[in-house]
């Protein structure tokens, strides 16, 4: 069981896709102007990640290795498209903000990376946990970035404004440059914390 939990926890910190592996970066920057957008994108990605991990793990003995990449692409693309359509139908506002980054989940290399490196070699349960951990690691990173940018840039959190409408906020953080700078500084923060943890242990 401890082994399984490890599959789950590694995505949250040590192998965090955003802060550690630096993969799947486009949505990290593009859709994090608010915490809610970050959360939505994170959960959508997590959904695709779990589904495709499970499916690929199930099919691992069926798929010939020569065509495995196209197969993975189809599986991932299918789930991305499903998320895209469903979100369009039921969460139209969020869908509009996330825009093409929902279909782009298919090229997010967290997906391909996990399919190739993990799901194709492991059991259904550990693949699901791996996907869940990676997805939640991605989700918390996006939500945190979104929250910071939203607080600084718009003076609100999860769309609840906590400053007067007329108050000046650091609009920089809502804009593209603010996205890059926020992520850069958060990566530095993660490095500091990790260095401390390493020293402590």
């Amino acid at each position, binding site marked *: 069981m401890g082994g399984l939990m490890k599959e789950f926890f590694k995505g949250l910190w040590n192998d965090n896709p955003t802060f550690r592996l630096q993969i799947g970066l486009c949505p990290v920057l593009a859709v994090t102007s608010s915490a809610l957008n970050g959360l939505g994108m994170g959960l959508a990605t997590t959904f695709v990640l779990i589904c495709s991990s499970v499916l690929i793990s199930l099919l691992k003995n069926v798929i*010939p290795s020569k065509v495995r990449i196209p197969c993975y692409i189809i599986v991932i693309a299918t789930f991305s498209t499903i998320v895209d359509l469903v979100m369009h139908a039921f969460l139209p506002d969020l869908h509009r903000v996330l825009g093409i980054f929902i279909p782009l989940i298919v090229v997010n290399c967290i997906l391909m990376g996990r399919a190739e490196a993990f799901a194709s070699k492991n059991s259904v349960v550990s693949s699901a946990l791996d996907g869940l951990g990676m997805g939640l690691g991605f989700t918390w990173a996006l939500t945190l970035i979104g929250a910071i940018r939203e607080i600084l840039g718009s003076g609100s959190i999860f769309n609840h404004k906590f400053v007067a409408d007329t108050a000046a906020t650091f609009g920089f953080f809502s804009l593209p440059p603010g996205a890059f700078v926020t992520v850069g500084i958060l990566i530095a923060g993660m490095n500091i914390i990790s260095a401390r943890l390493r020293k402590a242990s």
Partner: protein
Amino acid sequence: MNESVRMIVVLTVIAMVSGGLLAWVNDWTGAIISENQLQAMMASIQEVLPTATRVEILSSSPSTLVEEDPDQAREVEQATTEMFIGFDDNDRPVGYAFVGEGPGYGGAVRVLVGVDGASGKILGISIVSHAETPGLGSRIEEESFRSQFVGKTLNDPIALGRDIDALTGATVSSRAVVQAVRTGFEDASIAYERSR
């Protein structure tokens, strides 16, 4: 099974299952999506044409306007793209709404304008889409800015600095709205007259 036959079979099966699944999801969501979009548009039109209970789409591309009057072609090209006519309970046209577009600070600003059919006065405008700077250009969405257009007719200047005040620090965005309203208005009124 031969290796390459297996490859082809597996790939085909996966692709077909995927295609089928997507087709089903698309069917299921497609209706909801178009319904949503219609609802959203209706809600906006309702906002600018309060008395209308039913809306008809008049034209959704410039070409329908151009056909009869080649002289208008040049202007029309950059103006009205979408136009709607509102009817009251008695199926009498009460006015029309059109989408106008103007170049803003961060890209095109699209504005929905509602006009009273009888008086030719603007009933209200709403901003359909824009990419202006939050807190600066985005203030074109504010009621106080939009309300300046209410009551204007084609005989009014509808010009920045004359009868419309720009938002401080956002002249570009303000001008985009004014231009979207003014140019759209001219073409749309011709189209509306013809349609009656």
